[in-house]
């Protein structure tokens, strides 16, 4: 936390993502806590739940939801009158989303990732790409200082979590401060959530030299998890004591700040540092 504040262009939100090496380290709880604490400090915050497969942040808050909107992406449609059943598209598709059958080409939307190759490759121009509904997104208001944005993928579009997360990140502009809840891990969807953020708060139980790809290390605030309370990396701001009482308090409330003790202290201190950084970026 000693590194200098990166200048941010005026009007751009100061953004912080919360990620974790794997599930169960408390990333969702921490994201919710930090969003609330920054809102308490008078910084209008937007909590973006960047997990479109299983949004879990808003369940910990009382949220008044706005209307759901559909999110769509290009997806192939086969014109069976033009189709010569040559199988070029099904041969090409690396994801087996198109299959040549006696009755013609059959499309499996749950396997399609929308590369557009089938349309380009079809010699009879029988494939067009049209917008297909991937899922829905909604915005909610917790109070005058905090709002929430989340999306949920349709069951036949689960493979679209990384593009949906990118969509969420791009749609979340108007707020001075953004708190992004990333999916656990360092895979594609997680990295999509923290692309371009000012800071990534990363809950880690691995050795601190295991890299987190996709972000410069000076933007990562590493926090040792409750799974490794005995490690003492310099950047550790939250001490997880691993006790049953702390675990119980966190389980019941879904929040870290209400657990009392060293965990809550650490969350408050981290919120203070982030508030300073965000204030510096705007001032």
């Amino acid at each position: 936390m000693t590194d200098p504040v990166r200048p941010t262009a005026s009007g751009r939100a100061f953004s912080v993502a919360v990620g974790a090496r794997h599930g169960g380290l408390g990333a969702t709880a921490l994201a919710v806590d930090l969003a609330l604490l920054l809102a308490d400090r008078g910084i209008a915050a937007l909590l973006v739940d960047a997990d479109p497969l299983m949004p879990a942040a808003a369940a910990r808050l009382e949220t008044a939801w706005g209307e759901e909107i559909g999110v769509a992406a290009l997806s192939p449609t086969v014109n069976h009158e033009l189709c010569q059943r040559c199988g070029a598209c099904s041969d090409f598709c690396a994801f087996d989303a198109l299959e040549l059958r006696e009755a013609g080409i059959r499309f499996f939307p749950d396997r399609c990732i929308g590369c557009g190759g089938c349309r380009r490759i079809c010699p009879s121009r029988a494939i067009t790409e049209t917008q297909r509904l991937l899922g829905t997104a909604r915005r909610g208001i917790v109070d005058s200082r905090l709002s929430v944005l989340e999306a949920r993928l349709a069951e036949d579009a689960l493979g679209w979590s990384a593009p949906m997360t990118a969509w969420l990140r791009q749609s979340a502009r108007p707020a001075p401060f953004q708190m992004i809840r990333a999916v656990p891990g360092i895979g594609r969807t997680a990295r999509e959530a923290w692309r371009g953020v000012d800071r990534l708060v990363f809950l880690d139980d691995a050795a601190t030299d295991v890299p987190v790809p996709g972000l410069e290390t000076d933007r990562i605030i590493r926090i040792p998890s409750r799974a490794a309370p005995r490690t003492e990396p310099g950047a550790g701001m939250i001490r997880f004591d691993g006790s049953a009482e702390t675990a119980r308090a966190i389980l019941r409330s879904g929040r870290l700040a209400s657990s009392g003790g060293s965990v809550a202290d650490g969350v408050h201190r981290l919120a203070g540092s982030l508030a300073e950084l965000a204030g510096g970026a705007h001032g």
Partner: protein
Amino acid sequence: MGEAGHGMNPQTILVAGVRPGTGATTLAALLWSRIRSRAASLVLLRPEGLPDAFRAALELGTPERQPLEGRDQARITEACFGCGSCALLCRFGAIRRTSARPGAFAAHVTENAPTAWTIDPLSCTGCGVCARFCPSGAIVLRQPVIGSLEIIPGTSRNATAVAAALEPGREHDLKTALRLIREGRSLASAEPGSPVFVTGVSAAAPIFPDLCAASSRLVLVTAPGPGAARHLETALVRAHGRTETIRVAISFMEQDPEAATHIETVCQTRGIDFLRGLPYTESLHERLRDGRPLDALPAEDPVRTAADTILSFL
């Protein structure tokens, strides 16, 4: 174990959390460690492989490693003349310019850099569009090594764990997951009646429905807390009709009896067997963290009793 678990087709039990962090991996490890003197295998689908402490707690030996190949991936060869049409075609932003001079022909950039374009291996989906439409045929598809497959024999009994340590940024797709499960099945088939426990992914993973289809049984693990019932409903929708039996276990249920009752109601309305789950005990978590054998848990430890009860239902 059920009648499906014999011969060449060992029973495959997927133990998955309704979302990450419910304790499903811990439960699976515990169930596997409680199965006595059989060739049971534990397939762990976490991309970072098996942590050392976890390995010690499960009394596992030294891993035997072999390279693990991922899906197809595009690679630009020296035949590239730098037109950049691949970057326009790629919908995943995987092809980026590495030259400081936009539009420069590759050969003109520097002598040491054969191309002005590179493919980010972590963003490439392997769809093959760039390779198919490259005007100079300069892009090839290869299956790169993305990590190592680890087969880890038990030290105190005839049971094996299968895991994969993937390169940072890689995650299990269906291909690598099924490869690990195949390995686990072949190990378990050495002794009739030995099951395969598959764990390390939750119902929030895109490959979850396909993993259900590859398993004969599913144990969904949930934990009381905000949104638990809704996550369980979502997980049940994703698993519906894909596996023979579904059972639900609750971790840490004594921490919030009211939430546990709510989860039980969800199970009842859907006709799904509900198992009491693992209590939260510091002893279990300390053992996993410090690498002390799970097997040495005292006989009266509530976690051990709970695991044996769950096993009797499987």
